[in-house]
């Protein structure tokens, strides 16, 4: 074994468990800060902005679109007539699934802070609540928020753990408004100059697509970005958005997939924690 690795191994074997006193101090401080936040309870909601049912769905899409990819408010004249109606159709829908997959390949600077990618799946419904999964194929963790309860349930299958915590005060009962929804993103996507790609077939579904350059990324680094939106010809609802480009010498690809209405089963919104799972935190 090389000396560096031998020394690194010795050092990495050092392990100290924190004392109960420190745990108590830190958790108490966090709880205290949360209580103070609750007291202040910033009136930061934008209820007036969103009046449609989609408002209450947008919890998660926000996580994806506002948080991971980030959405940029870019004012622009509208797109073509047929395509411009898509956001309105989305707003009329009660339940949907949104999956974001970020892929990175060919990263040349191995010393750069890595964002190797990942997959997030969101289920949103005014009737059934909110769920988010992370993990590709095998779900690493899922989060659930019932429609009428102010709790956040987290389930980690790999560790057979679960937790249930109150929603942050600023999100209770109004969590959805915190976030932007797919309609908003697609509206701005469509506002970019685009070219029509014609018809194709994705997963057996006949689709029609458009392509834009420099798709909205809200500050996420992306050079030579190209975005493609594919819409189900039958329903005129999006089923896929592909964004490709480069960042820090690496090829990046964001794939957003959608399912709408009855394609999303109500059972998906229930945690159904197995009996052998244990609480994550005391």
């Amino acid at each position, binding site marked *: 074994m090389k*000396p560096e690795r031998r020394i690194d191994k010795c050092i990495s074997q050092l392990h100290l468990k924190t004392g109960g006193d420190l745990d108590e101090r830190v958790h108490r401080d966090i709880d205290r800060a949360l209580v103070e936040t609750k007291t202040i309870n910033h009136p930061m909601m934008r209820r007036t902005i969103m009046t449609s049912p989609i408002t209450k769905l947008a919890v998660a899409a926000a996580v994806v679109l506002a948080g991971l990819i980030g959405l940029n408010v870019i004012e622009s004249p509208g797109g073509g007539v047929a395509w411009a109606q898509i956001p309105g159709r989305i707003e009329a829908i009660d339940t949907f699934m949104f999956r974001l997959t970020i892929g990175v390949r060919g990263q040349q600077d191995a010393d750069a802070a890595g964002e*190797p990618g990942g997959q997030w799946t969101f289920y949103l419904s005014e009737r059934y609540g909110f769920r988010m999964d992370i993990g590709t194929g095998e779900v690493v963790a899922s989060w659930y928020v019932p429609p009428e309860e102010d709790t956040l349930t987290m389930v980690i299958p790999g560790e057979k753990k679960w937790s249930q915590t109150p929603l942050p005060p600023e999100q209770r009962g109004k969590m959805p408004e915190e976030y932007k929804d797919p309609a908003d993103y697609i509206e701005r996507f469509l506002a970019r100059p685009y070219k029509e790609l014609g018809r194709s077939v994705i997963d057996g579904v006949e689709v029609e697509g458009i392509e834009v350059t420099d798709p909205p990324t809200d500050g996420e680094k992306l050079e030579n970005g190209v975005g493609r939106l594919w819409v189900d010809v039958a329903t005129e609802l999006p089923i896929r958005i592909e964004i490709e480009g480069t960042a820090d010498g690496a090829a990046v690809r964001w794939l957003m997939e959608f399912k709408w209405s009855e394609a999303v089963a109500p059972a998906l919104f229930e945690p159904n924690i197995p009996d052998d799972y244990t609480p994550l935190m005391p």
Partner: protein
Amino acid sequence: MYDSRLFNESGRSMLEDKWLILRFNRGDRSVLHRIYDKYKDDLVTLAAALLMDVRVAEDVVHDVFLSFLGSAGRFRLTGSLKGYLATCVANRARNVNKAGRRRHGAALDEVPDVACPEPSPEQVAIFAEQLGRLNAGLLELPYEQREVLLLRSHGGLRFAAIAKAQGVSINTVQGRYRYAIEKLRALLDSEANE
């Protein structure tokens, strides 16, 4: 092929961190419970190995989380959550070390043994025993070299990130690392030959 690291444990941990960072960036301070539980041992170990004092190390970690708590929603975290926390701990520990040097005329890392002003609790004894094999070597290293070693092993930081944290060039950090490794290797070899 696209990155497959998502399928291993570190990849899954990274995904959870993405969620935690996301929530934190949106002002949700309740995720700090999970962040603390996830990384507390690594951070206390890092601080204790830097300062050779478990009690002070715990205070350092506590301070870092207090600052973290106060900053929720005011800035955006990017990159590695563990690396960020480790850097915060290292920065705080460095200040503590400097303050100790100013007060006592000697840095904490110059104290010849695990420093603890009160009777050692069990955890201190355990850590001191673990540290025993490396204690002499680590104590002989200049603070900056020890910091490089520990930030790599317990903070998961790369040389570039350590260089940024220490405010020096990557070459300097790599030099510190090589020197520290060489010194520790010589010490461990001499122990083995005894």
